[in-house]
């Protein structure tokens, strides 16, 4: 059970949130211009990194707002939380960390 910092409400238990998967997937502006493969890539293919993963979360049992979180999938440490439309944390901060801790 993570502790997640909602950008609007502050720190709350994971039970109040729901995860929407990988963030920063932009809906193609003109889907018709994409071939099947590119459309399928947008639709189905997702990253599954060992390390920091940028993902969407919604404070579903709270304010109902969607936001982004950078979470290390090994340690489950949440590196940073930022609003939709904001820049993700600097890539340097996204390097995988050793398995046994920080």
């Amino acid at each position: 059970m993570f502790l997640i910092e909602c950008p609007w409400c502050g720190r709350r238990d994971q039970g109040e949130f729901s995860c929407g998967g990988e963030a920063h997937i932009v809906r193609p502006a003109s889907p018709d211009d994409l071939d099947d493969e590119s459309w399928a890539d947008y639709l189905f293919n997702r990253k599954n990194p060992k390390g920091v993963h940028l993902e969407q979360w919604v404070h579903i049992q709270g304010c109902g707002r969607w936001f982004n979180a950078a979470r290390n999938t090994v340690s489950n440490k949440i590196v940073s939380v930022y609003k939709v439309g904001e820049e993700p944390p600097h890539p340097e901060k996204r390097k995988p960390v050793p398995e046994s801790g920080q």
Partner: protein
Amino acid sequence: MSTPNATTSHLQEGLTVNSSRRLNFKFNGRSYQGVVGDTLASALLANGVIVVGRSFKYRRRRGIVSDGAEEPNAIVQLGSGATTVPNIRATQVMLYEGLEATSVNKGYSLDFDLRAIIRLAGRFMPPGFYYKTFMSPKKLWPFYERLIRLSAGLGEIPKSPDPDLYDSINAHCDILVVGGGIAGLSAALTAGLAGARVIITEQQPLWGGALLGRPETVVGLSSKKWIEQVIDRLKGMKEVKLLPNCCLFGAYDHHFYTACETRYPPGITIPEGEVRERVWKIRARQVIHATGAIERPLLYKNNDLPGIMLAGAVSAYINRWDITLSRHAVVFTNNDSGYRAACDLVRSGASVVVVDPRAASETNRYAKWSDQNRVEILNQSWITEARGTLRVRSVIVKRSGEGNQQFEFTCDLLAVSGGWNPVLHLYAYSGGKPLFDEQRGCFVPNAKIEGQQQIGAANGSFSLAACLNEGVEAGIHALFECGYSASVPETTEIESVEEQPILPFWRLAESGGEQFIDLQNDTKVADIELAVAEGYRSIEHIKRYTLLGFGTDQGKMGNIVGMAVAAGLLKQTIPETGTTTFRPPYTPVTFGAIAGRHVGPLFDTVRKTAFHSWHCSHGAEFEDVGQWRRPWYYPREGETMQQAVNRECLTARNQVAMIDASTLGKIDIQGPDAVTFLDRIYTNGWGNLKPGRCRYGLMLGEDGMVMDDGVTTCLGPNHYLMTTTTGGAARVLGWMERWLQTEWPELKVYFTSVTDHWATISVSGPFARKTFEQVCEQVDLSSASFPFLSFREGVVAGVPTRIFRISFSGELGFEINVNANAAQGVWDAIWEAGQEYGITAYGTETMHVLRAEKGFIIVGQDTDGSVTPIDLGMNWIVSKKKDFIGRRSLARADTKREDRKQLVGLLTSDPARVLPEGAQLVANPDEPLPATMIGHVTSSYWSENIGRSIALALVRGGHQKEGQRIYVRNRDGETIAVNISSSVFFDPEGERQNV
């Protein structure tokens, strides 16, 4: 930092046994007496009860071996009837007056049971026995299965619902200390003195841990006095929470821990309003694991005989409970802690022989003691065999060196210490990978985990001095991390003693016979040998093959020994072999504790509509739709369900009928970009929908699959009301919010759920207008001024309402939305007005039949997340002029396939035959099994209006197969001929709803 008033006597009742207060209890039907302060295990030992159960697989007699959570043998069932609980360790239950316990594994009359039959096959069952023996002949499997089921499992589950209360509580603290032994108490005291919020848990009823069983001096006090004093001080600190009898059983991310507090042991009647067990959900900033260590057994022939105990437990039973366990004892130890038991045994009057595989040491501090007490110490010696039938009577000792001498010693007790395993479960649950320390002969914590510290015996530091000091240091470190300034408590000095290092050894190759590694599951050395001989290499596989550690004790005593034995056989080091995965819970947790208050009416939310009591008083049978309770049908006196549904269906088509449609999801949509948004989310266009008009819409996932449907109405400029399916309401609102917030934040549009605000009454049938106009006089209900798919506001029975001319039955219909608080009067008025036309209320079953007659789909019944609008034959609703969510996916190679499953109607050759929903369809009824399935039935009903059965189905390439004959193949092998038809069975032109 005040020292509270000390009331030191009986701070912990039972810290010293109070032999003046006697308690009566029963074990396996026989009456005994114990004293206040006893555990069930100590009371049994004090009564000379040596055999406490039978082993799981071989029915061997077993006795108490430990004094803690690791106990594999003394597993009992406590209490009776609805509150009985199995699989409780007798070592962890404080005795109470009237306690009744039975061994979970006593067998029938302790001498014969089903497993004796299994034993006929061969003396012992090898690993894989069940797989190997019972797989053939196949026909006998049901017999075998019954046999296995009868003999499997430990204990009995209660036969009726548990009447007791359980609950859970969330707690937060700066520092969580797990374990109330010397290390944990020392850490908690340090943290508490600085004013930090501290929670300390201890799984046993009493504080003190291993110290309770050791008559040592701590900071100038006797160990008991020291424990009392620390507990007393902690109790005086208002930010410190002490939780005895509380087993911390799980560790999760971000320092979230779960613990189960036993407030009243099973079998005790609890006071009104009290809870039996409470689950603590603890979120801490810093966590200190002071979980102690578990002593290891050693391997030799018949090492499972009753009368063989762990050395630490022997000390505890002598010191803490004042039990004389033995007159002639043998101690078998590869480390110094066995000598403590030897000292305690000598003090309690026993003659003692110590068998120690280590060479005699010049510095052995026990040398003088042994001379004085006539204790024989045999160095470089091993026990190869224990002998006895009912209990241990003698041991065979082999001494290396001159001629490999062999001795036999008579004894009534064998105390064993093979070293200690730090309890690293919580560390491992948190992702820690323990490291094998060759010198200390045990796994110890390796890399630090942020916010966690392991101290004392859990850290492989076994001396009291180290435990005390590491407690203080960990407390200070945790305080620092939490931003407190710490002061070191008064000097904490314990005489530090030089110990001779352990000689870790796991087994003697020449010891034969039955050497048990896992006493609860009867896993022997020979089983591991067989597994390795059969090619198993991974310890995880060996574990599963031999059932090592699969008991309710999860192999706390034997697992590491088993891994070491496997490592030896595989000619690997212990680190190469590794450990199996540690998984919560640490000790078994009852379902009652896990369920907590979420039972009975609190199990799930029940949503009722504004008309619920009317439905009840009119005899409705209810159906659960999500959390909603919806009327299913309204049987009249003597009617079967089918008769009631037939009557409701006929009335709705020929007269007038009403249904409570309040559960439909309703979302209020406002804002200048509302139309833009609707255009993107629905497959059809919304730009030309004028205020006062309604339109049916279909929603897809981005993958092109149908997700929800419903009617949306333009209430006014930039103002819409969307309806969704009952089950999809929350999902659709969440879906729209997600697109708005994450993809199109520039759109000015706002969504509000108004499902509960509006109650909905749907009136339909040829007499719907005649009925409704009696209660709604201001609105012109004629088709000319209020056509199908339009909306008006109007007062009904004195209440302002929204009126929609829409219909899910295909009949002339009005759907009325009214504020839920004023809705019953409107319902009653319509009901009254309809009486002269024979109005009936109908439920969900009739609603389903009526819509199926019209071929209207139900999303989630006729679709399953793999169905496009094209598959449904709903191309008419898919706009070609705009983009919308899911549109591109309809042009994917897979969604364009012509042999996709498509929605069709099915008519059985025998019109009376109603197909089972979910039935599989085949083209060729004679094809041998497994047959090629070409689709399945999604909806199937008897239609009284048409006078025959009707069904909807998804059939491969079905749109091109109208008129063809296919077959349903039932599970029992029966085939039913059906003809593919149009999915619209009634009023195909749709005339009736427009009148």
